[in-house]
């Protein structure tokens, strides 16, 4: 094993070997240059104390008392991954117990190393951090990285490596699309999000004849076929449905928004729902202005945001963030419903170590849930495809981890905040909460029954639904609306007379746009199906790109 890390299991806190340099933990803050962080009171010796208490807990099976870092209830389970049954069934108990002990030890050591490294990074001690990363990689090569804590630790160690050596490469939009699609198929979180949001939108649209859905992130448009079908079957007949999809511009000249719009229009045509689609290409959500959405008078507006709002946040305490201006115009549109789905985690804390710890727990649970699905999937027909789905879904999560750990400032977009923060933020913006009804809850429960993992749980708190794994909530869905006000609508975008009206007049109107923000590569495409002729017609903007 070498001279590294062997002392940490003996539980001695008087002297430790960190990266090969023996010194007392109390001297650590003298060795490392003072970093401009606000955790000056953090005592590195507490990490070893925590590890020691973990070891004591495992050996005596008593309740742990964790000083600084909060540990979820299933933490001991995670660092004792289930030992794979050996081929020799007659293996004596001693060997299996020893194997398990070794795995536990390695798991604990890995976690210890991760924490120490994160602390070193926070203090700005890159030399120490680099040596710890090397140590972790050495340890990972000897540990089972295919499941359990080994896998998660591997991803986090890799993310720390990328942070130190600045090898982060941004993803293109189409790659992100693929990853997102596989994540959608591999686990129920996104399906839960879509179905719950659709149920809330459906209930809010009751009694309205013209409805407009604004999707903050269209992707492949997988949320909308279910809504189109549900609207087709609603008693009283389907309304006239408009969908405005916001998404990043495609680099290679293909208009992916338009393609998605075509497919949705085709589906709507087959179930005889009058439909119109509009695509708004923008790199960032705060580049979008309300006039681009062309909300018409008298139509019911629904705004749908699945895992998008957290990208608009900035460091806490840094004043106004892009989220504030976006929420302002969202409230200004006076929507009938705003569906917000966000990760249930606190990854926007100012201190790097806090963020790192939170992310470690969150993604451990997330990977756990994926593994729960893997084991039951491997025996199925189409099992190979399922395995691939899960593997790519893990890559998607890995990108998120890298963003949280490696990036700072503008480039860090995965700024997850818990539901309580979102509630207060949305209330401040002038929206009032809508209770997600029992229908949504029953549908979510039924959806989970269909998924083969046994550990998922849906909970309802205060009118919001959360989906979690073994009682740790991982994703939350809530609904909001603008409170009904009797005063005249004050937004300038939906009172003008030459606003887009359904069916035939769209072609001329698309050229009325005169002022364009330089940051937005903005192209309008109007796709609608004329129900009188019952054929699909597409009117492109024809005006090329605006810059």
């Amino acid at each position, binding site marked *: 094993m070498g001279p590294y890390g062997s002392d940490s299991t003996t539980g001695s806190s008087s002297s430790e070997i960190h990266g090969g340099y023996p010194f007392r933990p109390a001297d650590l803050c003298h060795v490392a240059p003072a970093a401009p962080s606000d955790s000056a009171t953090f005592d590195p010796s507490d990490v070893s104390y925590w590890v020691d208490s973990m070891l004591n807990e495992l050996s005596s099976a008593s309740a742990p008392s964790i000083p600084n870092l909060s540990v979820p209830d299933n933490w001991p389970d995670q660092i004792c991954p289930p030992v794979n049954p050996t081929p020799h069934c007659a293996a004596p108990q001693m060997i299996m117990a020893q194997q398990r002990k070794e795995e536990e030890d390695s798991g604990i050591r890995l976690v210890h190393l991760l924490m120490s490294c994160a602390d070193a990074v926070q203090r700005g001690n890159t030399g120490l951090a680099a040596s710890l990363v090397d140590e972790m990689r050495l340890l990972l090569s000897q540990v089972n990285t295919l499941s359990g804590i080994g896998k998660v630790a591997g991803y986090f160690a890799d993310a720390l490596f990328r942070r130190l050596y600045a090898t982060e490469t941004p993803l293109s939009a189409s790659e992100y699309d693929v990853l997102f699609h596989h994540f959608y198929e591999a686990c129920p979180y996104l399906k839960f999000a879509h179905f719950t949001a659709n149920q809330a939108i459906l209930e809010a649209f009751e009694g309205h004849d013209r409805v407009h859905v604004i999707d903050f992130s269209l992707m492949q448009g997988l949320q909308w076929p*279910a809504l189109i079908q549900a609207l087709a*079957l609603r008693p009283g007949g389907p309304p006239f449905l408009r969908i405005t999809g916001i998404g990043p511009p495609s680099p290679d000249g293909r208009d992916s928004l338009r393609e998605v719009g075509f497919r949705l229009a*085709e589906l709507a045509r087959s179930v*005889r729902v009058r439909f119109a689609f509009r695509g708004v290409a923008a790199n960032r959500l705060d580049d979008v202005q309300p006039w681009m959405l062309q909300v018409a008078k008298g139509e019911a507006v629904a705004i749908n945001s699945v895992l998008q709002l957290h990208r608009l946040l900035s460091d806490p305490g840094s004043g106004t963030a892009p989220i504030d201006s976006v929420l302002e115009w969202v409230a200004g549109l006076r929507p009938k419903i705003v569906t917000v789905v966000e990760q249930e985690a606190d990854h926007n804390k100012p201190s790097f170590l806090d963020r790192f710890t939170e992310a470690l727990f969150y993604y451990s649970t997330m990977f756990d849930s994926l593994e729960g699905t893997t084991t039951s*999937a491997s025996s199925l027909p189409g099992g190979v495809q399922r395995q691939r789905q899960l593997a790519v879904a893990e890559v998607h999560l890995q990108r998120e981890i890298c963003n949280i750990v490696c990036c700072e400032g503008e480039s860090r977009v995965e700024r997850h905040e818990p539901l309580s923060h979102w509630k207060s933020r949305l209330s401040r913006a002038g929206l009032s909460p809508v209770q997600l009804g029992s229908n949504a809850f029953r549908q979510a429960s*039924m959806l989970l029954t*269909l998924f083969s993992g046994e550990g998922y749980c849906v909970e309802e708190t205060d009118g919001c639904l959360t989906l979690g794994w073994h009682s740790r909530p991982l994703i939350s869905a809530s609904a909001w609306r603008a409170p009904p006000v009797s005063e005249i609508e004050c937004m300038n975008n939906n009172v003008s007379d030459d606003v887009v009206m359904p069916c035939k007049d769209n072609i001329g109107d698309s050229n009325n746009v005169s002022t364009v923000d330089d940051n937005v590569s903005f192209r309008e495409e109007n796709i609608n199906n004329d129900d009188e002729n019952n054929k699909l017609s597409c009117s492109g903007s024809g005006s090329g790109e605006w810059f």
Partner: protein
Amino acid sequence: MGAEQAQQQHESDEEIDNDNSHRGYNINNNIDILAEILTRLDGRSLSVASCVCRLWSSVCHRDSVWEALCNRHVAGGPGTRSVVVALGGYRRLYRLCLGPALDRLTVTGSAEPDRSGWAHLSLSLSLSLFSIDCYERLGGTKQRPASLLFLCKPVNVS
């Protein structure tokens, strides 16, 4: 003696008559009756029936057979039929969504107090999943539609 012989002759004549009529009647000559019978089967039996011969397979491909099966479990509203047909038909709906869903839901759930509400919910959920599958197929042949893989059941091939 003569009466007995006459009776026996009569009985044997009857048997011959029955044999003749038995040989003359073949279910495969009356496809509509076959279809009527098949509408009363459950999903698994229907699938087995479609493996009997080419004729039976073609009858089992009729959507009306599967429509009857679906309606027996979960009855939809008036417009359901046109929507299901537009999205791909009852046979596909049952095979991909409703069948696996009903299997899983009846295994795990105990007797639901609100039977009609449960049926309605399972139908709407199945239709939603079905519409996603239809939408994926519209996207061309780049990828096999995979959003319903999670509903696949393990097949016992022992």
